[in-house]
C-alpha cells in the first residue's frame, strides 16, 4: 500500500534534505507543506507519516503537534529540527512525537529511525 | 597548524618565555602548565604550582566566576574572554608602572580556549593573560579629560560660573523640585551698572577683571546649593533654593555690601562698580521657571529706572 507522507518545513533546503534521505525504493506519495496551516490541511486529508520542522513562521512544530492532539489526528510524527535543546526533544515527545531527528539530516540516521519504528 | 618546515625552535621554550601569562588546567582544575610570566609575577615557580589544584594554590581567585568560565569552555568548545574593563584582573599581581594613576594592581585581559587531549576531546583549557595596565591608565586619563571638557562646556570661560544654558537647566530642576516637594525658591537677576562705560573708558581687560571679581564675590556670599550663572555681557543670575523673597533680599544686600567694600583690582588699581538687582520668589501660580525669571527681570528694570545700585523685590511697592 502506498505510504502517504508529509514533509513540513518552511525551508526549501530543509524539505529537500528530508526528501533526499527517504529510502529510494519506497512506495510513497509525498506532499510538502511550507507552514503550520498547510501541514494541518494536509494532515486532515489523511496521512501515514509526518516529518515536522519545529521552527516555522506561523505555527511552531509544537503548536502543530498540540493541534493534532486537539483535533484527534493520529499521525506518527518524526520531528526534524535544528532546535536541539534537550528540552525541545522532551517537549516534542510529550506532545506525541515518535522520534526526534537533528538537522542537518543524516541519511543513515533517518533511515535507521524509520526502521526502528516499522517504516521500512 | 603552524609548524616550521625545518626543525624549528623548541616550542615549549616559546611558551615558557613569551611575554604573556600562560596557564593550562585540566578538567580537574589542576595546573599542568605555568610559564615564566606567571612565575615571575606571582612569585610562585612552576615546580611548586604544577600539579596543584588552581583554587587551592591561589585561594584569592574568584572561584565561582572562574569555575563557570572554565565550565563554559569545556562544555561548549569555543573561546571565552575576560576584559579588564569588566573585571580588572584575574590574578592580583603588582604592576610595574612608575606612575600609578590610581591603579593598585596589574590590569588583565584574559582569553580561555580549549585544548584537545590525546583522545581528541577537549581535555584542557588554556588561560592567556595580557598585561593591560598601560591601556587602563590611558583610558582613565582620557575619561577624566573628557569629563573636564564637559564641565567646561557648561561653564562660562571667564568667570567659571555656569553659562546660561546650564543655569537654566539647574533652575528648571529646582523649579520642578519645588513643584513636587513644596518650599521656597527665589531668583536674583543682577546687572553691572554702566558696564559699557567701564569697558570703553578703562579697557576690556578692566572689564574682565570686574567680571571675575563679581564672580568671586558671588562665590563668597552664596551657598553651595545656590546656583550662579553668567548670562553673557554684564548680566548674572542666581537661583536660591529653599529661600523666600526676604531671604533672597538679605543675600542680595550682603552681596551689594561686599561689592561696595571690596572693589575689583586691576593692574594695582582699584576699580569700583555697582550692581542693580531684581529679586522674585516662585509662587504656585507660575507655570514654569520663565515666569519667575520674567518677574525678576521686571524688578531689575525697576531698579535701573529708579537710579541703579539698588535691589528691588518684585511685588513690593506696587511693582508689577
Amino acid at each position, binding site marked *: 500500500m502506498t505510504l502517504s507522507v508529509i514533509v513540513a518545513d518552511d525551508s526549501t533546503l530543509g524539505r529537500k534534505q528530508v526528501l533526499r534521505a527517504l529510502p529510494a525504493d519506497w512506495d510513497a506519495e509525498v506532499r510538502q507543506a511550507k507552514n503550520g496551516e498547510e501541514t494541518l490541511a494536509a494532515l486532515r486529508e489523511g496521512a501515514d507519516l509526518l516529518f515536522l520542522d519545529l521552527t516555522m513562521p506561523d505555527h511552531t512544530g509544537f503548536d502543530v503537534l498540540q493541534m493534532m492532539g486537539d483535533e484527534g489526528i493520529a499521525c506518527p510524527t518524526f520531528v526534524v529540527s535544528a532546535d536541539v535543546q534537550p528540552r525541545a526533544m522532551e517537549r516534542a515527545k510529550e506532545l506525541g512525537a515518535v522520534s526526534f531527528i537533528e538537522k542537518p539530516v543524516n541519511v543513515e540516521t533517518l533511515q535507521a529511525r524509520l526502521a526502528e519504528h516499522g517504516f521500512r | 597548524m603552524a609548524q616550521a618546515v625545518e626543525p624549528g625552535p623548541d616550542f615549549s621554550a616559546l611558551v615558557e618565555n613569551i611575554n604573556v601569562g600562560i596557564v593550562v588546567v585540566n578538567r580537574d582544575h589542576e595546573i599542568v602548565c605555568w610559564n615564566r610570566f606567571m612565575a615571575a609575577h606571582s612569585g610562585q615557580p612552576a615546580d611548586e604550582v604544577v600539579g596543584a589544584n588552581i583554587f587551592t594554590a591561589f585561594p584569592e581567585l574568584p572561584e565561582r566566576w572562574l569555575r563557570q568560565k572554565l565550565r563554559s569552555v569545556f562544555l561548549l568548545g569555543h573561546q571565552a574572554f575576560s576584559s579588564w574593563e569588566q573585571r580588572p584582573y584575574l590574578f592580583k599581581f603588582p604592576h610595574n608602572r612608575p606612575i600609578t594613576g590610581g591603579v593598585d594592581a596589574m590590569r588583565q585581559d584574559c*582569553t580561555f580556549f580549549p585544548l584537545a587531549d590525546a583522545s581528541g576531546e577537549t581535555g584542557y583549557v588554556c588561560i592567556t593573560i595580557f598585561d593591560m595596565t598601560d591601556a587602563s591608565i590611558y583610558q582613565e586619563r582620557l575619561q577624566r579629560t573628557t569629563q573636564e571638557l564637559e564641565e567646561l562646556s557648561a561653564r562660562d570661560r571667564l568667570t567659571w560660573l555656569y553659562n546660561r544654558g546650564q543655569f537654566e537647566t539647574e533652575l528648571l530642576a529646582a523649579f520642578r523640585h519645588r513643584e513636587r516637594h513644596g518650599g521656597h525658591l527665589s531668583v536674583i537677576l543682577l546687572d553691572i551698572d554702566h558696564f559699557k562705560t567701564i569697558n570703553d573708558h578703562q579697557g576690556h581687560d578692566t572689564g574682565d577683571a570686574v567680571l571675575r571679581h563679581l564672580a568671586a564675590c558671588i562665590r563668597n556670599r552664596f551657598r553651595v546649593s545656590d546656583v550662579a550663572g553668567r548670562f553673557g555681557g554684564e548680566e548674572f543670575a542666581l537661583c536660591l533654593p529653599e529661600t523666600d523673597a526676604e531671604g533672597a533680599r538679605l543675600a542680595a544686600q550682603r552681596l551689594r555690601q561686599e561689592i561696595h567694600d571690596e572693589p575689583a583690582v586691576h593692574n594695582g588699581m582699584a576699580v569700583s562698580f555697582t550692581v542693580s538687582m531684581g529679586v522674585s520668589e516662585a509662587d504656585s501660580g507660575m507655570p514654569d521657571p520663565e515666569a519667575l525669571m520674567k518677574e525678576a527681570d521686571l524688578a531689575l528694570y525697576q531698579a535701573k529706572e529708579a537710579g541703579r545700585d539698588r535691589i528691588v523685590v518684585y511685588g513690593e511697592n506696587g511693582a508689577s
Partner: protein
Amino acid sequence: MVEPLSEDQADALQEVTNIAMGRAARSLSTLLDTFVTLAVPRVQLVDAANAAEAVQETANLPDTVTAVRQAFFHGLRGEALTLFAPGGGHNVADLLGLDADELGDPPEDEILIETSNILVGAILSGLGEQLETQFSYTPPSIFATNTPMDRVLNPDDLEWTTALLVEVTFTLESRNFTCHVLVLLAENSIAVIRQALDRLLEEF
C-alpha cells in the same frame, strides 16, 4: 552594486543559520539550564543607509538597546552585534554564575558580554562547520549602551556600504530576557558565502 542572493541561496542561508542557531540555543540552554525559544532567522541584503530601519522593521526591538560587538575574520569577514534591552542582564545574572557575591553587584556589561560570546561563538562555529569555512573572532566589547538603533547602525560609522544581514532572536522563557544577534557580512565576504552556499546546494 551587490547582487542579491538567489532565492535558493537565501533559503539555504536561512536554513544553515537555523541549524547554527539551534546549536547556539543548545549551548546557552545547557549552560544556563533553561529553555531558549527560537524564531525563524531572517536573511536580507541591506545598505548602510537603511540598515537600522531594516532591523527595526523585522525585530521587536526596544527604543534603545545595548549592543555587544565581535568582529570575525579569517575566511569570512564581518561583525556580529548582539542587541539587548538595557537592564536585561540582571534577569540572567544568576544563571551565568554572576550573582552579587565576590565583587559586589555584577556589572550589567559583564553579563551581556558573556551571553553574547556564548551565542556568537556557537553561531559562528555552527555556520563555519556547515559552510566548511573557518572563523577567528575578536573578544567581545560593549559597542553602545542604551542607544537608539539608528545610532548603533549609523551609516557614517559603518565600514561597509552593503552587507548581508542575518538576524536571529533568542528568548529565555522563564526570565523575560530576549536578545537579537545580527551577523553582518561585508561586501567582499558576500561572494565567499555565495560560493559556500552553492557548494551546499550542489549536494541536492
